[in-house]
């Protein structure tokens, strides 16, 4: 019993200011650091294909303006900007296949 314990790889885990010696799985060590969400970066909420881009770079947009149509799950998904501003950059082309969370547009 003791031998099994001594052979384990232990690391230090801080729980409420107390340091415990224990096994920590990779899943915990590799977890993504949380970033303050920036809703000026318009990301794809689902993988799919950009069917049509409905704005131009430099264009002024209001909150709710349609930016593009994203073809996914047999639906033509309407992507709109949650904020008003100017289209800073368009990072995709019509027909391009995008992955989830890929940044498609930036609004400034």
């Amino acid at each position, binding site marked *: 019993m003791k031998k099994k*314990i001594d052979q384990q790889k232990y690391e230090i885990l801080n*729980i*409420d200011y107390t340091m415990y010696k224990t096994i920590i799985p990779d899943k915990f060590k590799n977890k993504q650091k949380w970033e303050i969400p920036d809703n000026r970066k318009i990301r794809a909420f689902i993988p799919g294909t950009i069917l049509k881009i409905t704005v131009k770079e430099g264009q002024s947009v209001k909150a709710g303006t349609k930016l593009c149509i994203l073809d996914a799950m047999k639906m033509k998904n309407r992507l709109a900007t949650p904020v008003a501003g100017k289209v800073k950059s368009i990072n995709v082309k019509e027909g391009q296949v995008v992955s989830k969370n890929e940044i498609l547009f930036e609004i400034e």
Partner: protein
Amino acid sequence: MSLKQKIRELQKKREEVIQGGGEKALEKQAAQGKLTARARIISLLDKDSFQEYDMFVEHEARDFEMDKVTLAGDGVITGTGRIYGAPVCIFAQDFTVAGGSLGLMHARKITKIMDHAMKMRVPLIGINDSGGARVQEGVNSLAGYGEIFFRNTIASGVIPQISVILGPCAGGAVYSPALTDFVFVVEKISKMFITGPEVIKTVLGEEISMEDLGGARIHSQITGNAHFYSESEEECFEQIKKLITYIPWNNSRKARPFPAKNPRKEFRIDEIIPDDPKLPYDVKDVIMALTDNSDFFEIQEQWAANVVIGFGRLSGVTIGFVANQPMFMAGVLDVDSSDKAARFIRYCDAFDIPIVTLVDIPGYLPGIDQEHAGVIRHGAKLLYAYSEATVPKITVVLRKAYGGGYIAMNSRHLRADFVFAWPSAEIAVMGPEGAANIIFRKEITSAENPDEMRKLKIKEYKEKFANPYVAAAKGYVDSVIEPLETRNCILHALDVSLTKTVERPQKKHGIPPF
């Protein structure tokens, strides 16, 4: 035709059905390392105990030229038998017949044996090995699945339901195992997912193999959908047989009593816990130092390993154990471990199995990801499960029991029947270091030598609060005991609890934080 000829005709018909999908299909099944459906049933059940029913059921589909197709037993084998003498109802899908796909009559055979299991109040075992819905039968296949899921739900908590995934179990089909009590998976053979790799690739453009998407290891380690993992079908059947010996036939019977045995001498219960509360140990050693013959049948071993659940026996009676595991993630409670423990507690409560809880918890796992994953909602499940359970509940506080963790791990307040604590127990609102940073912050920061003041305050707090006596003085702990007294104390407590009867306010059912 004479009677003798008619009997020979029957025997011939039986042999045809036993051939399943034919020689080629049988070879393919063997090539994948999979046993045939019948071989699995024979292997699992007691010798010569299997009685097959509905052998000659035929499908009635006519679309897509189905009228020209004969399917032996419509792709599933159903019947009754015994495991170590306990009666069971069993069905096993036959992958060699139309890929084990589910059509209306296939589903009827399954629901018939499920109805039988409910009527006779005996365990139901389902061996899943199917390509899914039989597309040619259209909505009839969906209707078939729906009828099965409904019965799984109604039977839940009345009879034990066991699912064995010995092949693909995809799409809608996978909801039946999800509704059952225990899911068994086998390395490289089990595959469970809602949407398969091909669809994921076409629709989403993400590539992944069947094994990585929903293989045995994924469900044993990541999703928590599987309860028992094995590396061969034979090993799996041994696990199922073992489980059957621990659980009752139905919710109005007790599990089969075994002759009482002492724990094995190599487990010295007073030598397991290190003196330093920050050092780890394997709580399973404590469990094995308590159970009969030190046997412990662990459930969901590889998932949420910071909490340990499983069955053991005390004086021959099946007991459900829940314990924090200090060796893994310091034994904290988090989203997955709360789910794991809560569901097991409800299983034990449904089937009248007393619960023994071993406590050594520093708190809940802090973190943005935990909060955003809903540790509040999931943690609440554990509180709900313990509070609601009316089976005898016994708690032993081994070491730390800080803050919310103290409450959640079957404290007296959630109506544990007997709460014992070891002299090493530290029942406090927080650990000494946390106390120093929070309660004594002003004194420390305004002191001449903050470091010295900090050390002093930690020492003071430790001496005053990091022990079981404060809680014992208030009656929150029933008895402070020596480790060597533990098994005896639990046995006596269980002895007195056999006739426990609790009244609860009338209600259809509560609304647990699902």
